[in-house]
């Protein structure tokens, strides 16, 4: 049975007089992978940040399944907010406190091992490669056992191997009872990972649906064609 975790209704965000998000509606279901695609400046990040409570909407409603949604949502934003002088382990400890959680060193080391980061446990965060930093950012989104996580362009600016590792990570998370909402410019990646896709352009939703349904509906061969057709 499909269960809605988050419902967005008529959401509007204006910067000065420009509507960067213009009356959008969609839902995020339990245990689904939802890909958000659209050109630069389409309103993807602003939408994600409003759902996360980082930005305030100018109009519209966001409904959550929980009284304290921030306790049960994980977020990886575009910037990497680590403390550069601190080790990976201590960064994790610090971020756990932001969610009111405490972990022993062994628990955190186990967690890092699961995500193939055991070789950098004691390295300073600023010494990690781009792929390792993104992986660590994703580890931080799930350490408090959230119901849903938001990943804003998790594979941007990564080499193919690192991209592949992040994709595998997202697939694993989706199999662990976590809803994953991610934005990306990589259509192949979105097609492979997503159960449903939200296509945004100029602040409005052009369409929502499973990759298969959307390809059939618009009579196109792949998501890239669909993207070019609708944006």
């Amino acid at each position, binding site marked *: 049975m499909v269960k809605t975790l988050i419902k967005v209704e008529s959401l509007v965000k204006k910067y000065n007089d420009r509507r960067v998000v213009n009356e959008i509606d969609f839902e995020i279901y339990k245990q689904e992978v939802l890909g958000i695609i659209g050109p630069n400046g389409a309103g993807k990040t602003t939408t994600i940040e409003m759902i996360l409570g980082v930005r305030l909407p100018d109009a519209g409603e966001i*409904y*959550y*399944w929980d009284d304290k949604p*921030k*306790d049960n949502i994980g977020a990886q*934003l*575009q*910037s990497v907010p680590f*403390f550069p002088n*601190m080790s990976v382990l201590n960064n994790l400890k610090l971020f756990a406190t932001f969610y009111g959680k405490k972990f022993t060193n062994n628990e955190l080391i186990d967690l890092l091992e699961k995500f193939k980061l055991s070789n950098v446990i004691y390295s300073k965060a600023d010494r990690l490669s781009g792929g390792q930093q993104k992986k660590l950012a994703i580890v931080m989104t799930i350490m408090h056992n959230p119901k849903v996580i938001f990943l804003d362009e998790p594979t941007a600016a990564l080499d193919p191997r690192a991209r592949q590792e992040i994709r595998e990570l997202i697939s694993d998370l989706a199999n662990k009872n976590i809803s994953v909402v991610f934005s990306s410019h990589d259509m192949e990646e979105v097609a492979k990972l997503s159960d449903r896709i939200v296509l945004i352009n100029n602040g409005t939703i052009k369409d929502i649906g499973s990759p298969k349904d959307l390809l059939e509906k618009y009579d196109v061969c792949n998501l890239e064609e669909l993207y070019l057709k609708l944006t």
Partner: protein
Amino acid sequence: MIIVIRTFLLEALKDVMNVFYTIILPLGLFIGLGIYMGTASYQQQLLSGSLAISVLFGAFFSMGFVIMQQRNRGVYKLLKATPFPIIKYVLSMAFARTIFSLSFSIVVLIIANLLFNITISIINIVLLFLILIVATLCFTGLGFLAANFSRNEVQVSIIANLISMPMIFTSEAFYSMDKSPTWIRTVGKLLPFHYFVQSIHALVHNDLPALWVPIIILIAFTISITLLASLTFRWDSNMSPLSGIKVLNRKQFLKSSKRKNI
């Protein structure tokens, strides 16, 4: 919160520039000039000056850079997506800086006693700690202001130097201003550092009646600067420093109408 405070303390101790400006430079000036000049009255003046510039550099310069870097790295943005309030995070930073200042002052007082035989009564040490706490909050607020109006390290540095250099040179941290032109002394009196140095002087010289006016003015500066810093605080590098008031007014709106359960 303890983990957050401990993190900031460790970060401060690992930051080479911070250690140089808040520990090595003030301590070097105190010991070096104290031995070179040799007079007891000047050693007392140096004690006040060393404590004052350590707090100024630590709370103002270091915090200015740290706040700007954290904002640009998206720390505050991410915090808004967590249940941890930004105000708690900011207070933890100020608290860690206060612990740092107080620890340094203990080291300086011990050295002052061992090297130059300067003694300060227990009551005066307690009062000194209170002044250091107020001053740390005051200059941390200035650090926030410098970061709020800057977009990068260069701008923080320019603003911090523009404010701190006149404060140091027009104060009596390291020399007497008795023979300086009136306008220079007037400029000094418009800045909080002057009253910070005056209040430490009063304690070091055990002149308690001279303590209260500067400390009241320093508290007034602290309240005003903290208020201004919180109104202009930018959690996102794309925000304008003047958008703070609008955000504060709209927070209630979010709580009342946007978060509904399904």
